[in-house]
């Protein structure tokens, strides 16, 4: 009888020991389910699948909120970011699909511009330039256009058509080319602006905070953006729980997942990272091109 006694007594530490393990096992298994299913799905079905992964993630976040207190929820939501990363990979895995999607976005963006009332279009389009000569540089054309007109409006957009040495935006360009063009335009304009002059299409935001605070600050800044170009500056994002630090640009890219869905549901807010760089003092700078419009949440 005495030999059997220990079996009747539940070890007090057993529950505590199992708890964190359970969370890890769950998350691991869920990743496995996503990966296995993902391998079976190609083409158009993949888009639907990514949408469903978002549903799964919503369920997982809610489960943490149902099971834990507020402090624990934040920690668990951080661990769910692994699933978010998978969503991003699923979305960007197929390069051809991604290129097609970018082309479609540019096409829609241009169609939106075309449906604007004429007088409004005139105000908003800074330059409509054709670069027909193969050797002609787009940024050079922009500069000479500035020299001819002598002034730049406070706000506006640059729309480029045709094919110069720098691939045209309408047909889809690379970030490098676009950022190069914008960068040289910015440098040129910076020399010309008067102190205190308000340049609406080039706003600078400093984003401070750590972990989710900073993510929220960036999301907030993007959501409320009413200008065409935005520059975000900030220190490295330091994650809680001793995870690796990551640069601001990565943080913004991971937020693109969220923004992408805002685009899908509202269709009047989108942004694109056009340039990112690390300055000597450890400050990161990311330039974004934003399609005007406020999200009404």
């Amino acid at each position, binding site marked *: 009888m005495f030999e059997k006694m220990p079996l009747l007594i539940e070890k007090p530490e057993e529950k505590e020991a199992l708890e964190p*393990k359970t969370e890890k096992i769950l998350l691991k298994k869920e990743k496995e389910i996503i990966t296995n299913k993902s391998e079976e799905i190609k083409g158009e079905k993949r888009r639907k699948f990514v949408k469903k992964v978002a549903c799964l*993630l919503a369920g997982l976040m809610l489960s943490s909120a149902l099971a834990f207190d507020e402090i624990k929820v934040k920690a668990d939501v951080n661990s769910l970011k692994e699933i978010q990363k998978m969503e991003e990979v699923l979305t960007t895995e197929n390069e051809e699909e991604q290129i097609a999607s970018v082309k479609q976005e540019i096409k829609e963006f241009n169609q939106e511009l075309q449906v604007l009332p004429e007088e409004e279009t005139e105000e908003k389009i800074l330059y409509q330039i054709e670069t027909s000569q193969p050797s002609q540089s787009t940024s050079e054309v922009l500069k000479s256009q500035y020299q001819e007109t002598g002034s730049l409006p406070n706000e506006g957009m640059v729309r480029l058509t045709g094919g110069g040495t720098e691939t045209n935006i309408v047909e889809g360009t690379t970030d490098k080319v676009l950022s190069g063009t914008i960068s040289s335009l910015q440098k040129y304009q910076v020399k010309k602006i008067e102190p205190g002059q308000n340049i609406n299409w080039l706003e600078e935001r400093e984003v401070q905070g750590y972990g*989710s605070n900073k993510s*929220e600050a960036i999301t907030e800044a993007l959501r409320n953006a009413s200008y065409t170009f935005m520059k975000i500056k900030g220190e490295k994002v330091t994650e809680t729980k001793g995870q690796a630090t990551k640069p601001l640009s990565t943080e913004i890219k991971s937020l693109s997942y969220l923004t992408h869905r805002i685009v899908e549901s509202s269709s009047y807010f989108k942004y694109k990272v056009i340039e990112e760089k690390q300055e000597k003092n450890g400050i990161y700078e990311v330039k974004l091109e934003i399609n005007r419009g406020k999200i009404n949440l």
Partner: protein
Amino acid sequence: MEKELKIKFRNILSVSKLSEVDQDKFLSALEKLPRTQKIEILMTLESSPENIPLIWQIALKRAEILKNPLKRKEKMNELFEEESKLLEVE
């Protein structure tokens, strides 16, 4: 939670097949999440309202396992089956 956000959640949940009690539980759980996650969930629900009952089932089952790790063996397979079902694409 901000009033406007709450109204949006109320609206989308009211057209789901969830009972009023579950809708209230859903909203209380959301209160604990950071704002960014609330918005993520709202976007997901708006784009897939038909999946709300399944999302809720998964949340309940997973929460039960997280709260009672000792029961996990019997509940886990059930949960993974639901999750797998959600990811089915026609």
